[in-house]
């Protein structure tokens, strides 16, 4: 009897003593994620991470939410959630790190912009601003690398992986050497559609898309898949090249004599698909129109820094910027579509007294000057483009046809049967595709590291995520190599930065192995201890005196 009491006391007394030096137990934490059916890889990653966090004495639940509700909660109910999975997709203009470096972590974007985790660090703000204004590449690169190290130190995100784009094509139809891979995009790039060479009678690129795009017009961003088409129908003054850097396109020459001035010389002899010539007035209009009132909200951010655009000759114009902007060429000149003034000026005039915006306009016969023209856009069925025979970069194919196929398995079958000859949008298990290629030697699979990344966002508005030590401990427990191999089936690379290794010039080499305490339970526990968190009977508590005042996610 006495022996039992003694034993009980020896267990209880130290626990009580610890409990007195500990705050309240941490509430059950919830990771919001997409449903397993919508994104099995992301869901499995969240499960793996939740398991590893439980080893720290946390209660972690997964809460899958359907698409719209998921975005609604994360975006508009910023006080409500603890942790969420999220992703940034790869787009050509993200070949420059500015967009993500600035928008994701600068505190001015915390209230309702893209800093939805509420990360606030004045030192980081200065760095992000400095890299935006630094035009010297080496100096800017040093600032971008420094910004990555700062984020690594603070861990506002638990970076997971940079996914790979897995696509496939039929090599009896296309000369495989003629595909042009683009940094961070792979061979599913505009450069491929411009250069791919047919081997036989089939001269139409027929590719699939899982999701339907929205309407196609030069002032609308029609989703990822729709953008594949608009990029080729409307020219831009510059285009992101295969190396990920901006290069002149509809502009013959682009110069920056000083940080606030950009001189553009327009290519001669271009025509719109209605036969009219592309003039310098069209180019000026295209750079100004998104700034007219609030009639082009999607493209307005890309012209916000433009102070003035003036013609300086029949083929030349000068852009004056409000503030130095290192990424201007890629984020604006390689993003804004050239739109015919004779068509769009009356439309903008008409919109002045209407609630509608330019995005909502659907021309009966869209007019562009790009290497392809729209033949038909039945958005739930297929988009058909034809090569523009008068374009200086005339494609080698006749048509570019995007079939909307919501059933991924049917897309695979269509590739096998030859109904499509390029599998562009594949969301299934990459191993199935690799096996298909093994069994069918005519099918070639191409995997390319994406510019985008998948991550867990820690909501710093809600304790304990406001503690740097707590966030670092959580990040240390994420086994990124395991996620890349298991959850993504090898079609991803571990990540610890928003800059993908695909963008070699901007990558902080080896940063994925510099996650503080990476992979070590002991290191994570020490971080928590150093931050004042206390383990009581296997449950993690706040530091002494801290009460749990935050309601669990419900």
């Amino acid at each position, binding site marked *: 009897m006495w022996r039992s009491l003694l034993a009980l006391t020896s267990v209880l007394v130290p626990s009580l003593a610890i409990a007195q030096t500990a705050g309240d137990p941490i509430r059950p934490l919830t990771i919001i994620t997409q449903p397993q059916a919508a994104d099995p890889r992301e869901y499995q990653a969240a499960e793996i991470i939740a398991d590893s966090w439980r080893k720290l004495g946390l209660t972690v639940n997964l809460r899958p939410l359907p*698409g*719209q*509700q998921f*975005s*609604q*909660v994360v*975006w508009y109910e910023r006080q409500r959630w603890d942790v969420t999975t999220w992703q*940034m997709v790869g787009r050509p203009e993200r070949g420059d790190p500015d*967009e*993500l470096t600035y*928008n*994701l972590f600068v505190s001015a974007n915390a209230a*309702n*912009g*893209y800093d939805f985790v509420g990360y606030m660090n004045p030192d980081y703000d200065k760095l992000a601003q400095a890299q935006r204004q630094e035009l010297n590449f080496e100096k800017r690169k040093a600032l971008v690398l420094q910004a990555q190290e700062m984020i690594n130190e603070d861990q506002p995100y638990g970076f997971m992986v940079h996914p790979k784009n897995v696509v496939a094509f039929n090599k009896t139809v296309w000369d495989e050497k003629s595909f042009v891979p683009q940094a961070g995009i792979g061979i599913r790039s505009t450069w491929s559609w411009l250069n791919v060479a047919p081997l036989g009678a089939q001269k*139409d690129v*027929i590719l699939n898309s899982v999701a*339907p795009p*929205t*309407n196609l017009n030069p002032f609308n*961003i029609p*989703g990822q898949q729709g953008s594949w088409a608009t990029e080729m129908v409307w020219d831009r003054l510059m285009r992101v090249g295969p190396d990920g850097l901006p290069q002149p396109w509809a502009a013959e020459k682009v110069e920056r004599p000083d940080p606030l001035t950009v001189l553009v010389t327009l290519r001669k002899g271009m025509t719109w698909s209605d036969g009219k010539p592309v003039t310098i007035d069209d180019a000026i209009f295209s750079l100004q129109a998104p700034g007219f009132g*609030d*009639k082009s*909200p*999607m493209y*307005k*951010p*890309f012209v916000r820094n433009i102070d003035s655009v003036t013609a300086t000759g029949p083929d030349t114009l000068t852009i004056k910027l409000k503030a130095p902007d290192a990424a201007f060429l890629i984020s604006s000149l390689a993003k804004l579509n050239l739109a015919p003034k004779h068509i769009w000026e009356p439309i903008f005039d008409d919109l002045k007294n209407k*609630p*509608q*915006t330019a*995005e*909502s*306009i*659907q021309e009966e016969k869209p007019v562009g000057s790009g290497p392809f023209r729209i033949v*038909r856009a*039945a*958005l*739930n*069925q*297929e988009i*058909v483009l034809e090569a523009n025979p008068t374009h200086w970069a005339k494609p080698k194919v006749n*048509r570019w*046809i995007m*079939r*909307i*196929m*919501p*059933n991924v*398995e*049917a*897309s*695979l*079958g*269509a590739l*096998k*049967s030859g*109904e*499509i000859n390029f599998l562009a949008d594949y969301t299934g298990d990459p191993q199935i595709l690799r096996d298909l290629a093994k069994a069918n030697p005519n099918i070639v699979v191409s995997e390319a590291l994406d510019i985008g990344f998948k991550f867990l966002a820690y909501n710093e508005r809600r304790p304990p995520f406001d503690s740097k030590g707590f966030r670092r401990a959580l990040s240390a427990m994420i086994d990124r190599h395991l996620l890349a191999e298991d959850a993504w089936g090898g079609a991803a690379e571990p990540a610890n930065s928003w800059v993908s290794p695909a963008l070699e010039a901007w990558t902080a080499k080896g940063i994925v192995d510099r996650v503080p305490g990476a992979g070590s339970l002991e290191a994570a526990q020490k971080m928590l201890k150093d931050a004042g968190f206390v383990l009581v009977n296997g449950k993690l508590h706040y530091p002494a005196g801290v009460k749990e005042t935050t309601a669990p996610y419900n």
Partner: protein
Amino acid sequence: MARHIAERLGHLLLVLWVVASLTFLMFRLMPGDPTLNFLSPTFNEEMRAALLRGFGLDRPLWEQYLIYLGKLLTGDFGQSFLQNQPVSRLLWDALPNTVVLTLVSLVLAYGFGIVVGAFLAFKRGSVAEGFAIPMALATRAAPEFWLGMLLLALFAFQLGWFPTGGAVSPGGTMGTLTDRLTSGDFWWHLCLPALTLTLFLQGLPLLLMRATMLEVLNDEFITMARMKGLSRWSITMRHAARNALLPVVTAFALGLGASIGGNVVIETVFAWPGIGRVLVTAVQSSDYPLAQGAFIMIAFVLVVMNTVADLAYAALDPRVSVGARK
């Protein structure tokens, strides 16, 4: 009869108003709005407000509702938020595809079901019945997507006899309904989705026909026919089958109504550009006007087909009098 039709019309309008109001409220009470489709690092409150204004979603709910009802009365379903085309145009483009798929499948399913159902009643207790009934039940119970994937795997992926999806070959044009109906390519694309739907639908008419036949075969007029010395085949087909058709005809009309809106799964599996596809896309992207329009159209067809079923029953069975109330 006129009064009955007037009553039916009243019911139709009431149902459509309820469906219109429910779909209006349902989408606005669901979390999220169409601007969530555009989230990106350059997206800000100003941009969201401009888009919401463009969609008319900045107005109070009651005002949106009145505008919506007012437009509906004039036959205006509004403009699709994402495709930026009139909803009525998108629906009218998709409806013929769904109607063709549904009608072809129903005719095949009911033709097969009626003949085989009557045959099985004739062959009651035979080996054929022992085999056919479980098969009919199995295909009826199998999920449509599973059945569709199975047929795709066999006839499209393995044998390559039929295309994997769509209504026309890549780059082909759909044209008018007449163009489609006279196009071999269209019918070739229709084969697999129609076969899937036929297999899924045939169980009901088959079992219904068989059960009704067995019931009718016990009626006195059949006994009378036997006493007259008519052959067994003649009794079954000429006398019993015709009388057993009544519930099957009703089921056909109801099935037509239900299938117009119920092809969502098959249209998705086979990328068939019908109302079901439109509905799925619209709901997924919070395209309220398009989803509302699709729901109202489906409700309209369903209610109309219910009425047709009633009237057809009355026409086929003189004992049923729709006008009289005694």
